[in-house]
């Protein structure tokens, strides 16, 4: 008995270093060498929610991530937080995936896992912020999805009532598991890994699945399975004057105020 919970997570550049990420003009992929990485912040809330649900009903929490080998670091952190098992989807064939190919790959992995009750995701990533993967994952699994989830309330082990944020209010929705729920930051406060948790990581293993393990066609994953293409990266040209003031605080501030008044901004 208990609930089988899957948490999807992504390793992303540290939000404070996001502006250091650039795009390779030739391969059009992200260059993020030397930039610290973290678990995508709302994905930590998804992990926390999964652990809370497990504590209430018992069961198992499995974390899945698609990414390069370095993404193991994010999964190790999830294990240290208390996740039972971690799976890394790693294969050169998965590279360059847009949201459709990513959601498809994740759905194949979840189906390979077998039975699942609840799939939790962060509502959006800090690096691309599309919020598209959770609904697309639900479509491939043919189960309902809810986005912007800020509260999950269990009526019993299989039935839940979910509060979903809307512009100017919220909706309450009832549904049965299985479902994909994309959570927002307000849902909880993620726990930190404990010392015991960190020690336990050594005993837990991270399973790696590639294309062959998933048994999927290579034209449905990665760049080949992505309907969208990056054409190029162009520099944004602002038409603004960009007058830069530098010097003694008092002087530059006085000058700035004068200019703002000339522009009728004050």
């Amino acid at each position, binding site marked *: 008995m208990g609930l089988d919970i899957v948490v999807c997570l992504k390793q992303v550049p540290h939000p404070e270093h996001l502006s250091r990420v650039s795009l390779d003009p030739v391969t059009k992929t992200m260059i993020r060498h030397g930039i610290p990485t973290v678990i995508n912040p709302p994905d930590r809330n998804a992990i926390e929610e999964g652990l809370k649900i497990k504590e209430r009903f018992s069961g198992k929490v499995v974390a899945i991530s698609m990414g390069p080998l370095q993404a193991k670091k994010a999964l190790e952190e999830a294990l240290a937080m208390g996740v039972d098992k971690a799976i890394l989807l790693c294969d050169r064939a998965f590279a360059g995936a847009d949201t459709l190919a990513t959601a498809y790959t994740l759905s194949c992995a979840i189906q390979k896992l077998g039975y699942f009750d609840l799939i939790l995701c962060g509502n959006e990533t800090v690096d691309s912020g599309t919020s*598209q993967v959770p609904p697309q994952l639900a479509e491939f699994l043919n189960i309902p999805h809810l986005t912007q989830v800020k509260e999950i309330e269990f009526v019993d082990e299989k039935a839940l009532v979910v509060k979903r944020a809307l512009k100017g209010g919220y909706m309450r929705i009832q549904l049965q598991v299985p*479902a994909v729920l994309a959570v927002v930051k307000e849902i909880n406060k993620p726990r930190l890994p404990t010392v015991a948790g960190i020690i336990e990581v050594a005993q837990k293993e991270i399973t790696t699945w590639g294309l062959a393990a998933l048994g999927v066609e290579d034209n449905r994953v990665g760049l080949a399975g992505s309907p969208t293409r990056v054409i190029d990266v*162009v520099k944004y040209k*602002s038409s603004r004057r960009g007058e830069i003031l530098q*010097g003694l605080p*008092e002087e530059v*501030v006085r000058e700035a105020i004068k200019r703002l008044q000339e522009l009728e901004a004050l």
Partner: protein
Amino acid sequence: MDEVWVFIEGRLGRIEAVSWELLGKGLELSQALKGRLASLWIGSKPEGTADEAIAYGAERVYLIEEPRLEIYQSEVYASLMANLITEYKPKIVLLGATSIGSDLAPRVAAKVGTGLTAHCVELYIEEYNGRPCLIQVIPGFGGNLMVRLVCPERRPQMATIRPGVMERPIRDASRKGEIIWVTPNIKEEWFRAQVIEVVEEEPSGTILEEAEVVVAGGWGLYSSGGFEPVEKLAKVLGGEVAGTRPAVDRGWISEDRMIGQSGRSVSPRLFISVGASGATHFTTGFLKSKTILAIDQNPEAPIFEVCDIGIVGDLKKLLPCLVKKLSGKRRGAEESCPLPSG
């Protein structure tokens, strides 16, 4: 005839303004394709919606009306929309990047197996691989980079656009258009998730989008002692506080005050950016402001490429000085700033 579709989002009898904004852009795209602009509405009481859509440029309006469609439900709306796309084969489908549009668009795209881009800031038609394609421009990372995306093979080409990004077209009630009533074939299995209530909450404070002055703080404030100067600055100017993603992550401001690609888009009379380096993810949220003042310690920060006036210097000294001068100005008296130490 090639059609460009715009999803008309309505809730509780009100239509989201972004729907009309997208009709303006949609008309431009349909003309470039020598096609037709159409709009799609799903709900229970259309009332004047079709006439409004036509007045904003739609040449055809698809209406799916049914009492059970009164409230947005992901699977029901997505299934109906995907079925209609399969039937009429539009070339382009645009939706607002709202809490509903961003939930609906990805599920529809997955159902019809096509590409979708989020939070586009620019859209136009250009030849790609020998056929006219929708070029979708989204903000990239770092500096002032924009990424151009295309969906070369599959159709429709789908995109979401945030409210306030496209200009609202002129309403012309003399325009004529065709209304197509679609009889929905709703399946019970689409109601696996059921809405039990919709609760409207009173908006707290001023709506950010309507503020005359917005002061936004970023990560640079961390080393200069925190967010307080931003609040003081907003206060003396009678403006609203906002911030970057890192400011939200630090807990300085709530998520609903985050400016940028995945946050709010504002266009106030004066936008002040403090201690933010100026990644495009942030800057796209305020590019349409009338005047932009940027303050940061790093003279190389890309924020200085998108501002009207930039001040480079130590935030710890600049901000109190600015607050003092501005509040002094209000009282009609010039006050001097503390002398910089060191």
